């Protein structure tokens, strides 16, 4: 079976029509991972027993002629920040180096209930903190399109696995762009849904008001299929929205003619690479050619997004990561003098440099004397950023923008300059702060053959609209 460009429907049909078996398909992926992943580094752990168990379940359904679920036998990978019962989950951190979760993340359970086969856990920046995957405590990920470059982050393994055909699709998480930015760097589709659309239960928390789970796929249709499967109210996450889940797949083919597409001038200003700009402009022309009305919009507070984001995100992270204390799970330092000495030395040994930096920044922003000037200020600016989108969406159905200011950069290029690394997220953090959905789709290449991505933003819970625009773009000649 040729795994190149294999989509969810093609994989499921091949199993249903007995061109292959779910077991043979899973084994083909494991063989591909074993041969190709040593030079890419996308996987941290393989869950062979679990995958082959699920595959044989699907195969016996095929044998009995039973009706197959929508993801029957489809091999998927899961970012290592989502817990998987009995399968080591580290969040890319040494502090969770030997953690074997006793329960499953809801999104993962839903995929398996729909017949998916979970191949393993994907590499990422430690606790999803990073934009290049170089903050993984275990190993860097190399971009399959150019091995000297980063795959983006923090869901670098999730994007690289899809780009290198080492999974049909994957789950990632997105707190400030961590699905969309690596999707852009690796030339795949990445969708961050509306906040509350997908349960966060079982997602190891980074910044709870900004964290999202979403798919990375080869096609927009595959993103719609995965979203339809994982979306919906979950009693285990009180922030999951109690709203019906539309059939995103059925709505893909509705016409886009007459849709109003906003172009935000603030996203096309200084700092945007010329090749990225021309690819985005060409993509906008293509949408116009499909009958969309292109309208200029303004999101005037955009330049304040990065500072607001890095205060809110780190403040929440400093609180969430307080749980890693060496008592109930994770690394514990040896030969300690006292309980507080144990906390400190366990955390000191277990966390990497970027995680410590963010805990420090967040703790500083929340500390007495600085709370109003930093954390509260950032929350007020967050309101302004959310209002920017609300005002713009009074006049348009969707907004397009570059996903990143540049194509994938080289490994090591920004590793010593945290601020430069943070600025790589300049076009993606806004959607997290406002909680609106955003999808990144490939829209061309640089002269060096590096993928370029374009984002499409929608109103809260308007995933159908942005998927429809993305699908129309992708399938247009």
């Amino acid at each position: 079976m040729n795994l190149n460009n294999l989509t969810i429907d093609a994989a499921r049909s091949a199993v249903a029509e007995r061109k292959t078996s779910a077991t043979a398909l899973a084994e083909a992926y494991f063989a591909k991972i074993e041969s190709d992943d040593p030079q890419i580094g996308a996987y941290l752990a393989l869950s062979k027993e679990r995958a082959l168990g699920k595959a044989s379940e699907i195969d016996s359904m095929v044998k009995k002629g039973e009706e197959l679920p929508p993801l029957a036998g489809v091999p998927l990978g899961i970012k290592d920040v989502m817990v998987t019962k009995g399968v080591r989950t580290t969040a890319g951190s040494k502090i969770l180096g030997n953690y074997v979760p006793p329960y499953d993340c809801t999104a993962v359970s839903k995929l398996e209930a729909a017949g998916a086969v979970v191949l393993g856990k994907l590499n990422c920046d430690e606790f999803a903190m990073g934009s290049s995957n170089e903050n993984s405590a275990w190993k860097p990920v190399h971009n399959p399109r150019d091995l000297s470059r980063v795959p983006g982050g923090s869901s670098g393994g999730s994007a690289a696995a899809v780009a290198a055909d080492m999974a049909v699709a994957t789950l990632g998480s997105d707190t400030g762009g961590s699905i969309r930015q690596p999707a852009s760097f690796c030339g795949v589709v990445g969708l961050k849904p509306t906040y509350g659309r997908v349960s966060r239960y079982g997602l190891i928390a980074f910044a709870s008001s900004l964290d999202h789970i979403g798919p990375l796929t080869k096609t927009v249709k595959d993103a719609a299929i995965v979203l339809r499967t994982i979306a919906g109210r979950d009693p285990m996450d009180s922030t999951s929205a109690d709203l019906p889940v539309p059939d995103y797949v059925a709505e893909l083919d509705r016409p886009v003619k007459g849709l109003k597409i906003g172009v935000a001038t603030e996203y096309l200003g200084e700092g945007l690479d010329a090749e990225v700009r021309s690819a985005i402009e060409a993509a906008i022309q293509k949408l116009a050619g499909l009958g969309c009305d292109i309208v200029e919009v303004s999101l005037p507070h955009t330049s304040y997004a990065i500072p607001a984001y890095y205060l809110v995100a780190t403040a929440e992270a400093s609180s969430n990561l307080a749980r890693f204390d060496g008592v109930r799970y994770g690394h514990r330092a040896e030969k300690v003098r006292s309980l507080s000495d144990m906390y400190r030395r366990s955390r000191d040994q277990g966390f990497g440099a970027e995680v410590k930096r963010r805990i420090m920044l967040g703790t500083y922003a929340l500390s007495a004397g600085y709370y109003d000037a930093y954390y509260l200020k950032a929350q007020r600016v967050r309101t302004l950023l959310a209002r920017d989108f609300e005002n713009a969406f009074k006049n348009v159905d969707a907004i397009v923008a570059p996903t990143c200011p540049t194509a994938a950069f080289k490994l090591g290029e920004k590793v010593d300059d945290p601020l430069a690394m943070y600025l790589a997220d300049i076009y993606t953090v806004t959607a997290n702060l406002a909680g609106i959905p955003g999808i990144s789709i490939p829209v061309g290449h640089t002269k060096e053959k590096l993928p370029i991505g374009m984002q499409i933003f929608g109103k809260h819970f308007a995933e159908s609209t942005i998927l429809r625009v993305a699908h129309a773009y992708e399938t247009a000649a």
Partner: protein
Amino acid sequence: MKVTDKDVTYVADLANLELSEDERSRMVRDLNSILGHVDSLSALDTADVPPMAQVSDRYGLDDSKQGSARFAYASREDIHEGLRKSLPHDVALANAPDSDGKFFKVPKVIEK
């Protein structure tokens, strides 16, 4: 320089981190660089802007309701039976660095 070595030591203490001397001096440099960028926020007048703590503040699922009533679906009736089972004892302790089979074990809590 906004953040000094003394500030870093104080904040590390609040965060239960024990940074080495090298880490501390790098942290002074990095926090000053990041906070220098963050200071652009002070140019905005936000006196009349309410803070936004979470996204669902913005879309309020049921606009006819106010405040926590909008999120009533997130709570349940108070019940005494039929609650979701907790993890069994042995499973909850399975990842513990140290336990006696009933409890998590930690070093001496009371310090001299």
